[in-house]
C-alpha cells in the first residue's frame, strides 16, 4: 500500500505558483507546442485538404485524452481515502487542472500525427482496422494503468519489466507497425522528459520522495498511451476518409 502512495502524484502548484508570473500551464503547453511545431509542416499539407475533418478529429482526440487522464488520475488515488470523495475531487479539480488539458492536447497531437505519418510513409495501416479492436486496445490500456496502480510488486524492476512487457504486448496485439512503434517510443521519451523537467523545476511533485518507482512506470504508460491514442487517431482518420456506416 505505501508503494501506491509513491505513485500517486499530486500537484503542488498552489495559487501561489500562479503569481510567479510563469504559470506552469503555459510552460506545459510550450512543451506540447514544441512537439506540435515539429510536425506542423507535415500536418499543414493535410490540413489544407480537409481541415474541417482534422479539427473534428482533434477535438475528439482531445476529449478522449482529457477523459482518460481524469480516469487514470482517479485510478492512481489510494484506496483508503475514497470515503470522502469531496476532498478527492477538490484536490483533483483545484490543484492539477492543467494536467488533463495538457494530456488532451498531447493526445490530439499524437492521434493526428499517427495517420499523418502513415500517409507520409506511404504504408497505410491495415492491421485490424475496426472499432472493436480500438475499444479492446483502450480497455487493455486502462488495464495496464490499473495494474500499475493497484498491484503490489516486489520491486521497481519487476514493476517496470512487467509494464514494459505489457506495453509491448499491446503494441504487438493492436499495432504491429514500425512507425507506430517509433512514434510511441518518441512520445514516451518526450513525455517522460517533460514530466521530469516539470518535477525538477518544482512545478509538479510526486507525493513521495521515492521518485524512482514513478520513473520506472511512467515511460511504459506513456508508450502504451501513445499507441492507444494513435490507434484511435488512425481509426478516426479512416472513418473520416471513408464514412463508417453506423447501421
Amino acid at each position, binding site marked *: 500500500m505505501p508503494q501506491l502512495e509513491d505513485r500517486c502524484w499530486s500537484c503542488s502548484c498552489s495559487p501561489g505558483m500562479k503569481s510567479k508570473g510563469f504559470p506552469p500551464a503555459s510552460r506545459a503547453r510550450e512543451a506540447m507546442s514544441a512537439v506540435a511545431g515539429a510536425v506542423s509542416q507535415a500536418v499543414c499539407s493535410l490540413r489544407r485538404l480537409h481541415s474541417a475533418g482534422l479539427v473534428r478529429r482533434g477535438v475528439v482526440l482531445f476529449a478522449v485524452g482529457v477523459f482518460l487522464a481524469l480516469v487514470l488520475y482517479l485510478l492512481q488515488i489510494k484506496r483508503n481515502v475514497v470515503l470522502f470523495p469531496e476532498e478527492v475531487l477538490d484536490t483533483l479539480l483545484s490543484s492539477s487542472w492543467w494536467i488533463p488539458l495538457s494530456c488532451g492536447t498531447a493526445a490530439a497531437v499524437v492521434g493526428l500525427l499517427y495517420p499523418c505519418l502513415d500517409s507520409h510513409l506511404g504504408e497505410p495501416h491495415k492491421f485490424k482496422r475496426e472499432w472493436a479492436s480500438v475499444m479492446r486496445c483502450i480497455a487493455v490500456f486502462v*488495464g495496464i494503468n490499473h495494474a500499475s496502480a493497484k498491484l503490489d510488486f516486489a520491486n521497481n524492476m519487476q514493476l517496470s519489466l512487467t509494464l514494459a512487457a505489457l506495453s509491448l504486448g499491446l503494441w504487438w496485439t493492436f499495432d504491429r507497425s514500425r512507425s507506430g512503434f517509433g512514434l510511441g517510443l518518441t512520445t514516451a521519451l518526450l513525455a517522460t522528459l517533460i514530466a521530469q523537467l516539470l518535477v525538477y523545476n518544482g512545478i509538479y511533485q510526486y507525493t513521495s520522495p521515492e521518485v524512482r518507482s514513478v520513473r520506472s512506470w511512467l515511460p511504459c504508460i506513456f508508450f502504451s498511451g501513445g499507441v492507444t491514442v494513435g490507434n484511435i487517431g488512425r481509426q478516426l482518420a479512416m472513418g473520416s476518409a471513408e464514412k463508417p456506416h453506423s447501421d
Partner: protein
Amino acid sequence: MAKHRRLRQNISAAFYRHGLLCASYPVPIILFTSVSILTCCYPLLKLPLPGTGPVEFTTGAKDYSVPSHEPQGDLGERPDWYQGPPVAYIQQVLVKAAVSPWDSSLVPVDVFRSPLGRVFSLLEEIRNHVYTDRSLETLCLQVTELLPGLRRMQSILPEHGCLLVSPGNYWQNRRDLFDSDPDILKTVHQHEPKGIHTSATLKDLLFGVPGKNTGVSLYSRKRVVTYTITIALSSYDARFVASLRARLKQLHPSVNCTLREDHMVHVHFKEEIGIAELIPLVTTYIILFAYIYFSTRKIDMVKSKWGLALAAVVTVLSSLLMSVGLCTLFGLTPTLNGGSIFPYLVVVIGLENVLVLTKSVVSTPVDLEVKLRIAQGLSSESWSIMKNMATELVIILIGYFTLVPAIQEFCLFAVVGLVSDFFLQMFFFTTVLSIDIRRMELADLNRRLPAEAGMPPPPKPGPLRPREAPPPPRPSPHTITLQAPAFRNLRLPKRLRVVYFLARTRLAQRIIMVGTVIWIGILVYTDPAGLRTYLAAQVSEQSPLGEAGLPPHLGVAPVFPGGDPTSTLSVLPAPEPTPLPENQSQGHGASRPGGAPLTSPQISWGSEDEEVWRRLSFRYWPSLFSYYNITLAKRYISILPVIPVTLHLNPQEAIEMRHPQDTQHAPRSSAKTTDLQTDLTLYKVAALGLFAGVVLVLLLFCLYRVLCPRNYGQNGVQHGRRRRGDLPCDEYGYSPPVSEISPLLLRGHSMDIECLASDGMLLASCCLAGQIRVWDAQTGDCLTVIPNNGLRRSSSSGCWEHRDGWDSLTPTCEPDALMGTESRAPVFVDTDEYNEPPLRRRVTPSRPTLFGDQPDLTPLIDTNFGELPPSHTTVGFGFDFGGLVEKAYKEHEASPTMHFTAPTPPVTPAPPQRRRSLGDPPVAPPERINVSPGEWDSSVWSLELRGNLIAAGRSSGKLELWDAVEGTLRCCNEDGSSGITALAFLNNRIVAARLNGSLDFFTVDINKPLGLLQYRGPPGRASLPSSPCYSSEDVISCQLTRSVQCAHQKPITVLRAAAGRVVTGSQDHTVRVYRLEDSCCLFTLQGHSGGITAIYIDQTMVLASGGQDGAICLWDVLTGSRVSHVYGHRGDVTSLVCTNSCVISSGLDDLICIWDRSTGIKLYSIQQEVGCGSSLGVISDSLLVTGGHGCVSFWDLNYGDLLQTVYLGQNSEGQHVRQLLVLDNAAIVCDFGSELSLVYVPSVLEKLD
C-alpha cells in the same frame, strides 16, 4: 513442413467432424452445454452477493481466542473471513445519565450539561485503570496522525495516542474548556455538515449513538442523555476488560440492567467503492460495452442478428462464470476484486473467435446443406482459431511468470476462462449458429413461395403521395424493408426506428424493473439488520417455541422473554417490575408519556442498548478508522459487549455546573418553538423540493431540446444529422415540392419493352414485338419508329423488309443517310408512312450528343468512351456505294420481299413477376432459339446507341446499324450465325458476344463523302471530346475485324466495355478481359463458382463481377488479381454498380446490398419488393435509385435512408420497373410494361452542372 501441414489437416478434419456433429444434434448439445455451465457455476452460489452490508459473526466472549490464519475445515459455521486477529477490539462504555429528580427550577440546558460533564471523570477513570501491570496505554490501538485532508478535525479527534472517542473530544478532553464553554449545543453542532449526509457524522462518531437518541437537545422530552465512550484495543486481554467492567459497574451501578455480556460480535466489512474508484470502473465497463457493440455489429447475413449477438455475449460471460466457478471449486478463492477485473477478462478472452466463426460459416456456399456449411465454415477457420488460442495461452503463460501474485491469479483465471470459452464456442455457439442458419433457410423458403406464385397487387397508391405520419415501426433496424407502397415514401430516421422498437417492446424498462426488484429483494433479505432478522423475531414472538428456535448467536436476540426487540423503543411495559432509584416514585413513570414538565427522567436499559452501534450507519466503523488511514475493507473488527454505566445526578449538582449564559437561552415555551421550527422546516423543505422539481423539469426539457432538436412528427423538417452539402439533393429530399419530380410517360410500344439504350440525348427502346423506337431523352418525344420486319403495317415497312433482303447481299456497305444535329430533312422516309407522325423536333437541342464520361450508367448500357478521337477514315468506294445503294433502295421500295414472314410470335413472355435482367440471359437464349430458330428475321436481343447509330444484335446473329433519327438501316453484318446476346459500342468499335461463346469485334468505318469533318455543335463540356457525327452522306461500314471463336465454353452472358477493355462474363464461371484495340485476351479471371450474371467496369478500371453463386468479386484490371470476394446474396447477383466508395449489388433475393469497396464489409442492405431487385442505378455518389411496384425510389447511399418515392403512372399496380437507366443529365429512364418513364431529378441536375 510436412508435419505442420499434416497437423493442419488433422485439425481441419477434426473441426469438420465436430461441425457435422453440432449441426446434426443441436438440441442435445445445447442441453449438454447448459448443464455443464450450470454445474461449473454451482460453486458461485457460495460466494457472497456484492453490495450487501457488513457481515457479522458472533462468538462467545468467555472462551475467546484469536482465530488462526489457517482455515480449519471442521468449523462449519465459521465464515471465511474469520481468520487472524481483527483490526481492533472495540470496547464501548454506554453511559446513560439523567438529572433526577427533575426540578421545575432547572433550565433545559441542565438536561445535558452536567451529564456531559461527567464524561471527563469517567474518561479519567478509564485511562487510569490498571489491572496488574497492564494499563490502557499498553492495550489500546495507537493511532498516529489524521489524514491530511482532515485538518479541521485535528483538534477534535485524538492524535498520537489511544483511539479513545467520547463526547469529551469536543473539548479536547479537558474539563476546564467544557466548563467555560458558553454554548454546548453550538460546539456540538458546529462540525455537522450542511445538507444531506449519508455517512457517519462527527456527532455520531463521538457520541456513538444516533443523534436523535443522545438527548443532547433543548427540547428533549426524556431528559436522559446517552453517549458512549469508545475504546479501540489492539489486543484482547480478557482480564483487563473484565476488571474495567467490574470497576465501572461498581462505581456506577446500573440496577435494572440485564444486558448480556457474553457475546462478542465480529463484523466483517466489504470493500467500499467510492466515487474515485467508481469512475474508472464505470469507464472500463463503458469501454467493454462499446467493444461488445462494435464486435457484434459485424455479425451479418444471419437470420437474427440480435439472437446471435446475444449468444456471443452469453458465450463469453458464461465462460467467465465457469472459470470463476471452477477456480472456486478447486480451492482458489478469488482475492481480486471481481467487478474491476471482469472487463479486462472479457477483453482478453474476446469475441473475435465467435465473429470469425460466424463470418466463415456464413460465407460458405448457400446451396449446401446446413450441416455441411457449418462443418466447412468451422474447418476453414480451424487453423486460425487454434493459432490464436495458442498465442493467447502463450501470452498468458508469460504473464504467469511475472511472479506478481495478482497477475498470476489473473492469468490463472484467464487460462481457465479461455479454455471454457473455447469449449463453449465450439459447442454452444456453433450449435446456435446452425440453428440460426437452418431457420434462415426455412424462412427463405417461406418467403420465396408466394413470390413465385405471383403476388396479388398491393392497393393502388396515389401518383404522388405526400409523406404520411405515423410511420410503421420497422421490424429490424438493420434491414430496411420496403413494405406496402403506401408507406414507401416515408423517411424514417434511424434513431426513431430504434425508439419505436424500444417503445413497442418496452424491453429495457421491463428488464430493468425485474432486475431491480430481484436485487432489492435479495438485498433486503440478506441484510443482517433487515427483513430476515425481523421475520425471525416475529416468528419467535408468535410461536411459543420461538425462543428455542432462535439461534443463540443472533445479534438482536430478545432479552426479555417474549419481548419484541423492534418495539422496545416505543413503550416500555416492563414485564418485571423495574427497580427504580430510591429517590424516584412510581408515579413519575406513569406520567412520563404525557410529557409533563415535572416528570423525572427514567433511565431504563433495554435490549436495544446491547449493541448501540447497530443503530448507527454501517459506515460508522469504516469512517472512524479511515480517518486514521486504516481500511476496514475485507477485514473485520470484534466488538466486545458493552459496559453499561448509569449516572444519576441530583439537581443541585446540575445547577452548580451551570454556565452563566445557560440561563439566558432557556426558552420556557419550548414546545411551541419546536412546533414552529418543525413547521418552518417543513415549509422550507417543501419549497426547496418544489424548486428542485421545477429546475429538474426545465433541465430535462432543455436536454430534450438539445438532444432532439427536431420534431420528428412533422413533415418536411430537415433531419438533424444532415448538413447542407452532405447530399446533392438535400432540399428536395426532405420537403419535395410535389411538382418537382413528375415522371414523363413515353407511350407507343405495344408490348413489353425488352431492350433499352441511351447515350444521354437519345433513347432507344425495343419491345418484344421487335419495334425500335427512338426518343428524345430531354423532351420525351418519339423521334423515330423502326418497326420490326415481321410486323409490316405499311408500304414503308415493306421497304424495310426489302432493304433487309438487300442488305444480305451487300452486307458491309450501306448507304448512309444522315442527320446532322439540326435535323436535316429525311432523305428516304416519308413521314406519312409512319403510324405515328415522326417527330423532327430536334431543333437546337440544348446539348450535342456527347460521348460522356458516364460511369454510373446501369448495366444495360455502357457509355464509356475512350479518349480516342473517332477515326474518320475515308474509303472511297464506300462513298460510291452510297449512291448505288440509295438508288437500289428506291427501286425496291414498293415491292414486297420474298423474305417476308409471318409476324414473329412474341418471344415467350417472361414471367410477369420477375423479369430477366441482363444478368439472366443464360436462361433466356435457349427459349428464344426454340421460338424462331430458322427464320431469317428474329427478335432483337441487344441494343446499343451511340451518336446517331443504333446497334441492334438479333437472335439470328445479325448485327444491324440503324440511323437513330432517320430510322434507316445503315449497315448490316451477318458474319455470325449465333445470336448476339450482348453488345458493346465503344468509339468506333462494336463488340458482340454470341450465344455460342464467341466474341466478335467489329469496326465501324465512316467515310466522309464531302470531306467535311463535322463535329456536332459546340462542345458542351470542354473536357470531353465531342462526339463524331455521322452525316447522311457518310458511308458507314461495319467490318468484322476479329472473331474470337472460343472466347468462352458456354454462352456469354454479360459484356461490358470501358477504358479500352472489354470484359465478358459467361456461364462457364469465368470472366475474361480483352483489350479493345487488338482484341487480345488479357486475363481470364476465375473465382466464381457459378455462371457470371453481372459485371461492372468503369473508366477508373474498377471491375466487379457477380455470379449465380451470389458472390461478388472485385478485380484489379491491371494485374488480374482478385481484390476481394464476398458472398452477398442468396441466388444470382443481378446487377452491380460501383461508386467511389462502395459497391452496390442486387440479387435474386430482392436484396440490395451496399458494400464498402475497400474492405468488402457489408454496410447495409435494403430489402426490395419481390421482383424488383435488379433495377438499380446510381445518380451521384450518394443517390441511389431503385425500381419498385410502379414507382422508383430514391435512397441516400450514405445512410440507407429512403428519400423519396415517385409513382410512375395511374395504373401502376402490378407493373414492375424492371430496367432502369440513369442518363447523363440525371434523368432516369425506366421501362414500365409497355411504357417508358422518364423521371428528372432536377436538383441533382443543378448540382451536376
